[in-house]
């Protein structure tokens, strides 16, 4: 038996009211708000967040994870694997499977099916599937309002299952409806009616119907139909056409308060569905992209075991509103604000590689002689001077309290000028020094609880540089 062990989503803290976008162009808003990745976030960092959230409740040690898949149409590199970086940041082992899935909004379910296959055939005992997207729509387009940024992760395995995998169906349909060329910044699409009718609706209908038929089921047998859709009306029409009861059987497409998060959307909605599921529920997950995938899961008695992970409700509730459309454009690099002070010393790929245990795995050194924990790793103990006699301990996932801070207006990006330099007293006694993100600088106080988050830190030397920051601790639960 193969299926889902645990799940976790990630929605960036920033939201923009769609009226703000609409007003900038003198257009009507489609209503609600959309999620916006902060300027220090990208598909990799969001996938890390979702994966860490997914692993919060698992009994598995990180070393027990057999591999990591990453699906996105917006990976930071055209050539270079992202899943290796995500796996390293999550502090997974080295003898693991890693693969990136790309180029289609169906690559999230594609990665999930590949993981189910690899695990089901016994090649790996489990696999962590991540999907994240941060797609850019043309300024002023409808899609600009509809799109959201987000990520989700699902741990696939054979033991301690939350939902079992019951079957899948796939349909391949060559069509040019929504696409992006290598040189394009924005998603392109053909005439909307063609895209929605011959592309999306036809593909999803065929795949869902095909799966039901293959599994000998009727629409009424499904507890929740998870049908990611490019807009709310198309979603309603599709669900109706397939015979699902809008009130009870259809998973919220999250268009109103998050947006359409591309490759990640099916898995984000799956996570939301699992959060509300009961044992025995049949969940039908579909995803469109040049044809469609449909997968069937049956919820087990293990549901409800995930108690400490961050729920979608918590992501909906805890947000910071981005009130400026101009700033949104600048965060996405569409507008070029006056540059902040550039870094004078460009990063070195060699040094970054050499220091990956501290900078990516977030390891501190814990002295075997005196127990002092220091981050980053110190070969000679500050306290007792013992040399090369330490254990590496993972700092990510720990919380701490602000010991001191300053609000630096000199070094930030011109579109987000106030940098909160923070010294954090971590729960293990070490100190973390870094920038606080996703916060209101004016509200920072001493002793404020913070946690670590992996972010893009600066550009230079032609590659992307990531490091840990801190942020106010998110309150768990569904307030």
């Amino acid at each position, binding site marked *: 038996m193969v299926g889902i062990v645990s799940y976790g989503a990630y929605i960036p803290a920033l939201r923009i009211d769609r009226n703000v976008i609409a007003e900038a162009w003198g257009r009507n808003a489609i209503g609600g708000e959309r999620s916006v990745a902060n300027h220090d976030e990208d598909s990799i960092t969001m996938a890390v967040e979702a994966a860490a959230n997914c692993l919060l409740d698992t009994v598995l040690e990180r070393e027990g994870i057999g591999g990591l898949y990453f699906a996105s149409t917006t990976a930071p590199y055209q050539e270079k694997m992202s899943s290796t970086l995500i796996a390293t940041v999550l502090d997974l082992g080295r003898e693991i499977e890693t693969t990136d899935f790309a180029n289609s909004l169906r690559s999230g379910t594609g990665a999930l099916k590949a993981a189910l296959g690899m695990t089901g055939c016994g090649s790996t005992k489990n696999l962590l599937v991540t999907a994240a997207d941060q797609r850019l729509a043309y300024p002023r387009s409808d899609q600009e309002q509809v799109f959201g940024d987000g990520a989700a992760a699902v741990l696939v395995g054979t033991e301690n299952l939350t939902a079992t995998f019951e079957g899948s169906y796939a349909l391949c349909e060559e069509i040019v409806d929504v696409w992006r060329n290598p040189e394009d910044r924005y998603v392109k699409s053909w005439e909307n009616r063609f895209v929605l009718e011959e592309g999306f609706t036809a593909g999803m209908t065929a795949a869902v119907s095909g799966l039901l038929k293959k599994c000998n089921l009727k629409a009424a047998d499904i507890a929740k139909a998870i049908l990611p859709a490019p807009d709310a009306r198309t979603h309603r029409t599709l669900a109706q056409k397939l015979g699902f009861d809008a009130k009870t059987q259809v998973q919220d497409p999250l268009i109103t308060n998050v947006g359409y998060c591309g490759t990640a959307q099916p898995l984000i909605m799956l996570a939301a569905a699992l959060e509300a599921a009961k044992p025995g529920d049949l969940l039908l997950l579909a995803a469109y992209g040049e044809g469609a995938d449909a997968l069937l899961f049956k919820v087990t008695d293990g549901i409800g075991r995930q108690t400490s992970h961050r729920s979608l409700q918590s992501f909906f509730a805890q947000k910071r509103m981005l009130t400026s459309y101009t700033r949104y454009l600048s965060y996405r690099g569409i507008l070029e604000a006056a540059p902040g002070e550039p870094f004078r010393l460009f990063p070195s790929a060699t040094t970054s590689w050499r220091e990956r245990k501290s900078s990516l795995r977030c390891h501190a050194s814990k002295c075997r002689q005196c127990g002092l924990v220091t981050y980053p790793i110190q070969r000679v103990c500050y306290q007792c001077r013992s040399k090369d006699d330490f254990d590496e301990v993972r700092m990510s996932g720990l919380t701490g309290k602000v010991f001191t801070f300053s609000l630096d207006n000199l070094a930030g990006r011109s579109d987000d000028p106030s940098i909160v330099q923070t010294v954090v007293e971590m729960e293990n006694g070490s100190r973390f020094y870094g920038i606080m993100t996703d916060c209101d600088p004016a509200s920072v106080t*001493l002793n404020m609880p913070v946690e670590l988050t992996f972010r893009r830190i600066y550009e230079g030397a032609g590659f992307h540089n990531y490091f840990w920051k801190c942020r106010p601790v998110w309150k768990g639960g569904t307030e």
Partner: protein
Amino acid sequence: MGSIKDKVAIVGMGCSKFGERWDASLEDLVIESAYEAFADAGVRPEDIEACYLGLLTAPTGGTGGTVVSNALKFKDIPILRNENWCASGHIAMIEACLAVASGAFDTVMAVGVEKLKDTGFPGLGTGRGMTPVLEARRTSPGSFGLIGKRYFETYGLSDKEGKETIAKIAVKNHDNGSLCPKAHFQNRITLEQAMNAPIIAWPLGLFDCCGNSDGSACAIVTRADAAKNFRPDPVYLKGFGISMDAVLPHVRPGFDWTRFGSLINSSRRAYEMAGIKNPREELDLAEVHDCFTITELTIYENFGFSPWGKAKADIDNGFFTREGGLPVNTDGGLKCFGHPVGASGIRMMYEVYKQLQGKADKPERQIKNARLGLTHTFGGPPQLSAVAIFGNEKG
């Protein structure tokens, strides 16, 4: 530890005009301070046997001691560059003194110089390394600003009281700088101006931050027993201390952000060598590292000028003004005289040297009967500190 008290003396000093020296190159600045020092000491360039250079950055990379040989046409003498953040000049000078005390040379030069205004950036220190570790888009005000909130919290000052306390340091240093023709900033400010200035790195406002300047300062050092052959009023090195903390304060477990080991230990060693028991009473003036006002406040306590947590009372009472019990930064300090990093330590010595000789450029800022003065720079993240103490009499 041994002592070189009264073994070496300064017999000539020079200091360039500090400020935005768009007109001057690194070499021009060296020439400006060095030729004043040569004239002051009555020596020729060819009398210099070795040179110790303090220089942190340079407009371009790869500037070694050759900047001095190129400028002054020093031929065939060793020129040793020292880079130790903001303490570069101080430590270059201490190296010069140690070289003379060792007997290796009789007459040497220490010169500090910095050319910050060619960088195109009005601040100092963004970007520290080639990896993201420890790289938090850290600027100097952001880094030193970390002391502020912690100090206020530790000693029960509200944000407003804390800001007001450090603002008074800015007002004092501007008052001192207004009397210094070579200072970068020569304007007086009010407490209201300081309090209402734009925030650079909270809690530090514009007037809490030192000038980002170009400049150079130079000293001619010789054996104490030969000093009076040069001039009747040499100034003697009484003691020095250099101390570095073993890990970046930001990541040091348990660090309280008010008591800096490097400050405490560097001053203690200098006091011991100079035979000073009570610095608050015995020192006649001090030039300390006021890169930011909060730094000057911290130094008062770490150096024993004020009891722990009591600096506010001394500041409120004007203890560190020119008329107070221990005048600090009588030339305006880094705040107003400016902070061309490598030059600053030697610039401080220039002020103490002139004060100890009774030759302050304007009589109204001459400290009466000054006999013993301290100079100090605090460098890096901040992690290292250098102190020197000078006197106008042996013994």
